[in-house]
């Protein structure tokens, strides 16, 4: 039987506000344990939360960028459960009246645009972090630095039809949140987290199959792999006549499988109810409009602009605008450059290659966009061969030095001086009379051999185009 896969994602993004959601503690990743916390975010008796207005502003920014309806009236609720990292034993969240709802994101799949619905975006607070002792240490410690850090939860409609679509959606969403400058969106550090609901159904069936929820996917690749695994697991069970158990499963990255965490029967009853310590969130239309006006350029618009402004192919533009950082790097490099397509090739080629190989962020690249621009100029001017340029680029990454300095130090400067090359060519012709005769008799590939000999004599530094031209002139 043919099955259709149905996926919906729940994405949590930590907001990069200066302070936490309900107190004035610093919102900072990686501080010394329990230094950014206070009676409020540690849930001391009698302490009360005060909603940080920036949190609402950031969430509204996300809502507007994702084409959501922004609620003029919403409220906060308490989600109750016990866990040592949750000091109040409830999480302040939004239950039935989220801040934003009914939005959408456009993704591109097989060259076609597809709209994925956004059910809702709501604000909530993060929990602390458990630090488990080793096996022999019979305890766990809690770090409350993250407790009360603001999050938005973005829930998609079950519109995604494959693990790849899920990944494209998350990539697109991540890009938008980064462009908005409201979240760091680092999956490894947990500032962007994604849970997925997946089910399958026979093609043509209207009702949904039984779903499972997958957690602990810490990268884009993990998301896709986990969903591919789970999709296959569902298919295997159903085709063997079995039934899917509605449950939450954890992705085990090392083993490449999902493992059951808890079934629906074991699921907590969160006893959501309106948070009595906070007044409802009432927004002003004008305020929302002022945020809309201040929205930055988003990936889709930037992509169109790059095609128009720099004359680069649509494909290049879509890759270059995937993250805000990369698009800014490209733009700074390409702006005023004679050869934007070459810049695009370099950024998509060497820059992305080195980031991937070295597993680094763009900001750790150590190469200024202007420096890359000048490196490309050196190739265009014939000072540097393309192989030489790659060598210089590698050195620029390692030392942070400028291309001109490195070309000299590495001795990679091409000889483009006509007199020098003429002398070289004359010498090679004199020494290879037999080959010259062959060429004159019409054996055209003999020319390649002569060019090679010239290059060899110059230790690779001569400009090959120039040699080629001069040889032809001399022998014709």
């Amino acid at each position: 039987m043919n099955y259709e896969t149905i996926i919906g994602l729940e994405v949590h993004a930590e907001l990069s506000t200066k302070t936490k959601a309900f107190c004035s503690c610093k919102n900072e990743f990686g501080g010394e344990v329990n230094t950014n916390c206070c009676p409020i975010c540690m849930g001391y008796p009698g302490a009360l939360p005060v909603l940080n207005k920036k949190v609402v502003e950031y969430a509204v920014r996300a809502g507007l960028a994702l084409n959501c309806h922004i609620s003029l009236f919403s409220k906060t609720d308490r989600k109750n459960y016990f866990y040592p990292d949750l000091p109040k034993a409830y999480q302040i969240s939004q239950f039935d009246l989220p801040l934003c709802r009914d939005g959408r994101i456009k993704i591109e799949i097989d060259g076609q645009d597809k709209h994925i619905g956004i059910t809702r975006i709501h604000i909530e607070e993060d929990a602390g972090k458990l630090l488990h002792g080793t096996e022999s240490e019979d305890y766990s410690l809690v770090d409350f630095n993250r407790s009360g850090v603001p999050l938005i939860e973005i829930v998609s409609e079950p519109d995604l039809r494959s693990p790849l679509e899920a990944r494209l959606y998350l990539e697109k969403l991540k890009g938008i949140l980064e462009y908005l400058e409201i979240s760091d969106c680092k999956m490894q550090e947990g500032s962007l987290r994604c849970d997925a609901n997946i089910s399958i159904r026979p093609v043509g069936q209207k009702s949904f199959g039984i779903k499972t929820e997958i957690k602990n996917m810490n990268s884009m690749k993990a998301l896709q792999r986990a969903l591919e695994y789970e999709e296959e697991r569902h298919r295997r069970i159903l085709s063997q006549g079995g039934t899917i158990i509605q449950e939450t499963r954890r992705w085990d990255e090392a083993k490449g499988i999902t493992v059951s965490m808890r079934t629906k029967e074991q699921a907590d009853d969160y006893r959501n109810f309106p948070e009595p310590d906070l007044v409802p969130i009432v927004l002003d239309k004008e305020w929302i409009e002022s945020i809309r006006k201040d929205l930055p350029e988003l990936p889709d618009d930037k992509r169109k602009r790059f095609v128009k402004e720099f004359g680069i192919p649509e494909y290049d533009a879509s890759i270059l605008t995937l993250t805000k950082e990369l698009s800014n790097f490209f733009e700074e490099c390409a702006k005023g450059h004679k050869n934007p397509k070459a810049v695009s090739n370099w950024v998509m080629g060497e820059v992305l290659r080195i980031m991937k190989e070295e597993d680094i962020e763009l900001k750790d690249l150590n190469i200024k966009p202007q420096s890359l621009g000048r490196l490309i100029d050196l190739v265009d001017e014939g000072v540097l061969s393309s192989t030489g340029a790659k060598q210089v680029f590698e050195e620029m990454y390692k030392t942070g030095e400028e291309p001109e300095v490195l070309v000299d130090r590495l001795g990679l400067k091409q000889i483009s001086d006509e007199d020098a090359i003429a002398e070289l060519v004359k010498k090679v012709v004199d020494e290879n009379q037999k080959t010259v005769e062959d060429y004159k008799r019409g054996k055209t590939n003999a020319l390649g051999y002569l060019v090679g000999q010239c290059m060899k004599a110059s230790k690779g530094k001569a400009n090959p185009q120039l040699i080629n031209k001069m040889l032809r002139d001399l022998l014709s």
Partner: protein
Amino acid sequence: MNTLDLFSLTLHEIRDMMRNGEISSKEVLDSVYGRIEAVEDKIEAYLTLTKDYAYEAAESIDKRRLKGEKLGDLAGIPMAVKDNISTKGIKTTCASKMLENYIPPFDAHVFEKLKEAGAILVGKTNLDEFAMGCSTETSAFKITKNPWDLERVPGGSSGGSAAAVAADEAYFAIGSDTGGSMRQPASLCGVIGFKPTYGAISRYGLVAFASSFDQIGTFAKDVEDCAIILNYLYGYDEKDTTSLPIEFGDFKEALNKDIKGMKIGLPKEYYDKGIDGEVKEMILDGVKVLERLGAHVEEISLPYAKYAVPVYYIISSSEASSNLARFDGVRYGYRAKEYKDLEELYVNSRSQGFGSEVKFRIMLGTYSLSSKCYDTHYNRALKVRRLIKQELEEAFVKYDILITPTYPTIASKIGEKSEDLVAMYMSDICTVTANIAGIPAMSIPCGFSKGLPVGMQIMSKAMGEADIIKAAHAFEKNTNYYKNKPTL
């Protein structure tokens, strides 16, 4: 006057004597601690005495006064604070084993304000565990006695604060009122108990019982004292988003006012069966006093009033089940000595750390919020709450104040009522309405039945405090019940 009897005066009398240089703050404190030494063994109003702290504060006030600094009404006045209000560096136990050794790292907003005003903390007072109860008998530590009859309860939950003021162990006392926890003990102890409009006083630092009902208030010896104290407690606080950004003005301006033409409603549902005959008579006598002073009195009906108790218990217990969930033995407070895993750490710590009344309410609240019961219990209670509120708002279009008994009976014997939970809960009928609707209400002494005090409750519309003070002061000047003192 013998300085030894200073404790029996009112706040404003003591204030004047200190201002005139007749006595020092230290002498006042000596008198109060002398009184505490003499009667506290019998009353047991306090859980913690803060003598060192108090003398240090009194000394500083005296120094400032000597320098000629002009000090406010509360400067150098000894006060008591209920032990569910956070005091930095001073134990705040909520009368629970759970917080037996908890020392808060921060001050409640009200305590900060009172300290700034120069009021001096004498000690922290006893209460029903986590303010749940109406007799102070659910305290994990001691049973406070009613100063008028040591075999009877002082009421609750702020029984320690009420008894401390009634026994002259403090000039005033801060308490909290979630469903009558100030007015009811005030009624039973023969003092004034005032619950403000919801949001008028910051809740920051009040250990939450039911956040949408909780309100900090004061016990006072007379109406003038009450007005003075409220002036210092009221005001917007950015740390509590439910606090009202409103100026209430000077409550002293409501003193000594003519009440001619004031419209008073008597909701008949509050004078129904269940109210002790003598108590009812006393309230109606009190109303007659006001009528003689020129007020118009009419009987009215508030049909939704009969739902007030179940609405109150469902919502307050629901909020409590969530508010008290943080006491899990992980970060502070009581932790069970033995447990095998995390689940047992929670279960054992909470089973051993909480008393039975608190556990009962947590269970009731957890049940009311469960997905199975949310609509039939919690959500329905919210809807009825809105109806009760509306009904009162309509009544206050016509009437300036409503008068009811504060409590259906006089104080009961210790141990007497605790057996019958539902009967005990039903007796909250008169007080819970004000918390449900968030309106201000005061209990003022209006006579004695079998030698025990009876309180009359005056309610007004939200932010109508001045009307209550106006009526109460007129009543007090023409009755003077507050001048009666228990013999100890």
